[in-house]
C-alpha cells in the first residue's frame, strides 16, 4: 500500500494549466517587488548538488526560464504527446544521464480498482538518453493516445554564467489504454539543463518521488447527458461567454450544492454562479435532473443560496446572496420561504445598515450556525466587495476595503436582527469562505473566516454568540487568496484537520525565493500564496496547529476553488477533492485565464 500521504496526494485531482504570466502578474501585483539586488558570483556547482549561488535577478532568470521551457516543451512535451520518440530525444543532451523507473518498478498496491506503483525510492540516475526515452515509451505501451503531458518547473536556479540551470519540476503523462482503462504517471523531478548552442536541453534528471496509477476501467462514468445536467447552453450565450473569456475579463463560475429541497429523499442540485442566477436541478428519482425555478427566478435571479429551515416549521427557507433595497442607509438580503405554490419572498426580513455611498454589495459566503444556542439557526454572511472596494488595497496581501461581514441573529418567525458589530464580527475583507467549528473545545462554535487578498481571521465564540478575534493564531497568520475550506478527521486519528484552497503557482515558486530585496517577511507571505493549498493539523487534542500540506503533498492543486473531504470509495477514510481550473481562450494557443 502506498503511504497515507501519498494516497491522499493521489486523490487531489490537478487539472488545468497554470499560466505563468497570469499568476506572475497577480503575484507581482500583490507583493509589489522592489528591484532585487544582484548577488550572483562565478562560483561553480556540480550536479546533483543544489547550487548555493545562482542568479537572483528574477527578471533575467525568468527570461532564461521561458527560453528553456519553450525549447524543452517543444521537443519533450510535444514528442511524448505525439509518441514521436526521436523528437522527445532531442530535448536531452548527448551526454544525458537520468533515472526514471520502469512501469513495473516500485511497490505495487491495489486500491479500489486501481493498481498503484509507488516510486518513492529514487531510481538510480544511470540511463543514457536512449534508455531514458525508452522507459517513457514503455510507460505509454498500449495507450490509445496521450491525453496529457505536463512539464512545469517550480524551481529554476540559473547559473551566473547563464548557460545552465538547476531545476525541479512536476512531470506527468497520462492517457487512456485500449482496454477502456487509463494510466497516469506523475513525478517530481530535479535536474540540470544546459544551453547547447541556441537551444536549451536537459542534461541530468533524477526522480524525487512519483507513482503510476493504472485503472482497468475508469471508476467514474460521465453521465452528464444521460441525466440532463445542463445549464443554459444557448448558442448565443456560449458565444457571448467565449467573447468575454477571449477578452480575458474575469469569468467566474461558482459552487455546486447538494440538498433535498423538496424532501423526496433524493438529493437535488443547486448550481450557484457568481454574477449569474443560480440554477436549481430537481432530482426526478428515476435517473434524471430537471431544471426547475430557483427562488427569485421570477425577478433577476439570485447567484447563491443557503437553504435551511429557519423558522422550524418543517419547510425550507432560502437566504440569497443578492443585496437589494438600498434606502436611507439600509439594504437587504433576499429571503424566500417554500410554500405549496412555490418560493415566496419575505421582504424586509434580512435588513442591515450600509453607508449611504454603498449602492452595490457582492457576497459569496453564507454559513449557518446557532451561535447563541437559542435553538434557532443564525446566518453569517461573509461580505466580498461593494462599489467602494477595489481601491489601492485590492489584489494585495492586506486588503481591508472589501465588505462588512453580517451576522443575522434569528429571532423566530422569520425575523432577524443584524448584529455583527455588537457581537464583535467586524471583518471588512474580501471574504470567500467561512467555517464554524469548535476550535477551542469549549462546546460552542468558533468561526474561521477565509479571505481573498489577505489573512484569515479566527473569531472565538464566548458561548453566547459574542466573538473576539484571536490574533496570532497559526490558523490566522497567513495572507493568501483563500477560496474554500473543509474539515475532517481524514485519517481517523481523532484529530480534526482543516484544508484551505488557494492558488498554487509554479511561477511564484520559481520567482519569490529570488526576490531577496523584499525582505524575509514579505517573501514568506508570497511563498505561502505561491505554494497553494494549506492543511492545518493538530496532533493530539492540545497540540500546536501545524501547516502540513507540502509534507502531505496536497498543496499543489493549481488554481483551486473548492475542496471537500469525502470517502468516495467507502474504505473508511476520507479522500480529498479539489476543484480547480481556468477558462480557455477560443484560440488554443492563447493563454488560459
Amino acid at each position, binding site marked *: 500500500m502506498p503511504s497515507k500521504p501519498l494516497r491522499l496526494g493521489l486523490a487531489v485531482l490537478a487539472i488545468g494549466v497554470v499560466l505563468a504570466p497570469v499568476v506572475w502578474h497577480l503575484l507581482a501585483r500583490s507583493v509589489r517587488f522592489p528591484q532585487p539586488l544582484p548577488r550572483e558570483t562565478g562560483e561553480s556547482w556540480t550536479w546533483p548538488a543544489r547550487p548555493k549561488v545562482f542568479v537572483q535577478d528574477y527578471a533575467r532568470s525568468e527570461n532564461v526560464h521561458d527560453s528553456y521551457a519553450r525549447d524543452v516543451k517543444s521537443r519533450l512535451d510535444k514528442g511524448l504527446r505525439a509518441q514521436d520518440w526521436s523528437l522527445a530525444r532531442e530535448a536531452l543532451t548527448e551526454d544525458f544521464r537520468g533515472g526514471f523507473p520502469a512501469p513495473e518498478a516500485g511497490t505495487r498496491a491495489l486500491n479500489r480498482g486501481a493498481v498503484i506503483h509507488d516510486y518513492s525510492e529514487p531510481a538510480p540516475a544511470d540511463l543514457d538518453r536512449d534508455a531514458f526515452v525508452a522507459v517513457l515509451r514503455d510507460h505509454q505501451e498500449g495507450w490509445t493516445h496521450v491525453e496529457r503531458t505536463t512539464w512545469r518547473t517550480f524551481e529554476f536556479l540559473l547559473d551566473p554564467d547563464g548557460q545552465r540551470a538547476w531545476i525541479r519540476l512536476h512531470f506527468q503523462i497520462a492517457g487512456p489504454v485500449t482496454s477502456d482503462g487509463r494510466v497516469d504517471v506523475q513525478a517530481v523531478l530535479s535536474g540540470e539543463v544546459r544551453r547547447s548552442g541556441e537551444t536549451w536541453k536537459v542534461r541530468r534528471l533524477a526522480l524525487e518521488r512519483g507513482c503510476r496509477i493504472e485503472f482497468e476501467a475508469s471508476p467514474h462514468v460521465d453521465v452528464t447527458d444521460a441525466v440532463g445536467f445542463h445549464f443554459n447552453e444557448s448558442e448565443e450565450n456560449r458565444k457571448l461567454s467565449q467573447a468575454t473569456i477571449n477578452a480575458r*475579463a474575469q469569468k467566474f463560475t461558482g459552487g455546486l450544492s447538494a440538498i433535498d429541497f423538496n424532501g423526496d429523499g433524493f438529493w437535488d442540485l443547486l448550481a450557484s454562479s457568481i454574477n449569474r442566477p443560480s440554477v436549481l436541478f430537481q432530482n426526478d428519482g428515476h435517473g434524471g435532473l430537471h431544471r426547475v425555478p430557483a427562488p427569485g427566478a421570477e425577478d433577476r435571479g439570485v447567484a447563491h443560496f443557503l437553504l435551511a429551515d429557519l423558522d422550524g416549521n418543517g419547510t425550507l427557507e432560502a437566504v440569497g446572496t443578492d443585496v437589494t433595497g438600498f434606502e436611507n442607509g439600509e439594504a437587504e438580503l433576499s429571503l424566500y420561504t417554500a410554500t405549496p405554490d412555490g418560493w415566496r419572498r419575505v421582504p424586509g426580513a434580512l435588513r442591515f445598515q450600509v453607508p449611504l455611498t454603498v449602492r452595490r454589495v457582492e457576497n459569496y459566503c453564507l454559513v449557518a450556525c446557532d451561535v447563541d444556542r437559542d435553538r434557532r439557526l443564525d446566518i453569517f454572511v461573509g461580505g466580498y466587495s461593494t462599489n467602494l472596494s477595489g481601491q489601492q488595497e485590492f489584489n494585495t496581501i492586506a486588503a481591508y476595503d472589501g465588505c462588512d461581514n453580517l451576522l443575522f441573529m434569528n429571532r423566530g418567525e422569520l425575523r432577524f436582527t443584524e448584529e455583527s458589530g455588537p457581537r464583535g464580527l467586524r471583518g471588512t475583507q474580501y471574504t470567500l469562505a467561512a467555517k464554524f467549528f469548535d476550535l477551542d473545545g469549549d462546546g460552542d462554535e468558533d468561526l474561521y473566516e477565509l479571505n481573498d487578498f489577505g489573512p484569515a481571521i479566527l473569531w472565538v465564540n464566548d458561548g453566547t454568540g459574542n466573538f473576539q478575534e484571536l490574533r496570532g493564531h497559526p490558523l490566522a497568520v497567513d495572507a493568501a487568496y483563500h477560496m474554500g475550506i473543509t474539515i475532517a478527521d481524514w485519517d481517523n486519528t481523532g484529530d480534526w484537520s482543516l484544508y484551505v484552497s488557494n492558488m498554487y503557482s509554479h511561477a511564484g515558486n520559481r520567482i519569490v525565493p529570488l526576490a531577496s530585496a523584499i525582505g524575509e517577511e514579505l517573501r514568506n507571505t508570497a511563498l505561502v500564496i505561491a505554494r497553494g493549498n494549506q492543511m492545518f493539523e493538530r496532533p493530539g487534542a492540545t497540540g500546536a496547529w501545524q501547516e502540513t500540506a507540502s509534507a502531505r503533498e496536497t498543496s499543489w492543486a493549481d488554481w483551486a476553488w473548492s475542496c471537500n473531504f469525502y470517502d468516495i470509495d467507502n*474504505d473508511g477514510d476520507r479522500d480529498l477533492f479539489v476543484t480547480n481550473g481556468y477558462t480557455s481562450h477560443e484560440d488554443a494557443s492563447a493563454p488560459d485565464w
Partner: protein
Amino acid sequence: MLNTSPPAHFARVRLHAVESEPLALGAIVILNAGGVTQREYVRITDGFMAQTPADLHFGLGASERVDSIVVQWPSGTRQSWKDLPADRLLVLRENLAGAEASELKRWPEGRMLESLPRPSMDISARRLDGSGAAPLGIAGKAAVINFWSPTCAACLEEIPALARVRRRFEQEVQLAGVSVDRTELEVVAEKARHLGADYAQFVADDRIMTAFFGNEGTTPLPATFVFDKSGRLRRMFLRPVEEEDLAMLLESFREEGVFVADLDTRGSLELQEQDFEVAIRTYMQAERLAPGSALRWLKIGLAQLGLGKHAEAYSAFLRSVQLDDQDPQALANLATSLVRLGRAAEAVDYYQKALRIRGEDANTLVNLGNALGIAGRGPEALSVLQRACKADPRSAAAWTGLGKVYLLLDRTSEAIVALEKAVEIEGAAGEAGTLLKKLADSRRSGRGR
C-alpha cells in the same frame, strides 16, 4: 460523474436534535465498525459557495454492521447506540434510545452504454417509407430522436406519449423515430401508423448505431436522445421516457437565451476598453431583456460621455437617477452632463444631493463650486470651493477652481495664491499654470500701457 467503484459498505447518519436546533450543526458523530473509529462533524456548508447535506456518510469497507455510534450533541450531552445495520440511513434522535434504519432511496438500475457514443442529430438515415435518406434532425430546431422496435413492448407503450409531446412543441421541436429492426420494414411501418407515430421515421444502420450507442450491436431499448436547436446533445434516456420529463426538458429550452449578467459583464469590459459604441449596444440588449437597472443606465451614460454625446449621456444618467435617486455617482454624473449641456444652474441641485450622500467629497465639491461659478453664483461657489480645498488640500482641481472664482469676484491677489498652490501640486503645465501665465502677461501688458 457516476461512481462505479466496486461496492463497499457504508452508513448514512442523520441527527435530530431536540435540545438544540434540529439539524444539530456542530454535533460530532463517532462511529466504530470493524475496528476502525471514524469521526464526522455535522455541517451544511463546505468548500466554496457550496452546501452539503446534513446527513453524514461513513464508508465501512467490508464491515457489515456498525458496532457503535456515539453522538456528542450540541447541547453537550453524549448518547450512544450499538450494533446497527450497514448500508442504511440511520436516523438518531436526541434523548431517544432506538435508531431508525431505512433503505436509501436510489435511482432504478440504469442501463449503461459500454463505450462513449458521439451522437449527432444531423446524421443521415434511410427513411422508413423508402423515400431516400435525410438527416434525423435539422439545426435550428430542437430534436428528439427515439430508437424503437416493434418487438419492444416498452417502446410501443411510450410512442403515443412521444406523439403528444411532438404536438405540444410542434413549432420548436422535431421528432424522429429510428427503428433498430432493419428487416420487415413493412411491419415496422404498419406498427408506427397503428401507434399514431405521425413523425419522421427512419431505419438504423451500423453507422447510426455506432454514433448513438458506441457499438453496432446491443441497444438498450427504448432509447431517446434530445438535442437542442444548436445540435448539442442535452439528454439521453436509456429507458422509457416519462411524458412530463420530456416536456419539462423541452420547456426549459424555451427559457434559454443570453444571461443578462453576461451581457452586463461584456458591456463593462467594452466600457473599460473604451469601445463605447459596443458597450452601449451590449447594455441596451441587456436592458431589453431585463429592464430597470440603475447601474446599467449609469454605465450607458458614461459610454455616451465617452462618445461626447452629452444629450444622450444626460438622458441615460437621468434614467439611472430615476431608478435609484440615492446613488451619488449617478447624481454627480447627471449634474456633470447638465453642465456640459450649458445647464449649470440645474446641475447644482444634483451635485448638492450627491454631496449630502457622499459627505465632504472634494471632487463633488469642486464640481459643485464650478457649476455655481458658471451659474453666476460666485459667493456660493467661493464657499463651496473653500470647503473643497479643506476636504482635500492636495486637490489641484480644488485650488484651481478656487482661484477661478476669486478671479470671477475680482479678488486677483487671492486668486494668485490659490492658483500657485495648484501649480505646487500639479506643476505649471496644468490649468492653474496657464491661468497664472495669462495673469502675468495681462499685468505686463497693463504696465506697458
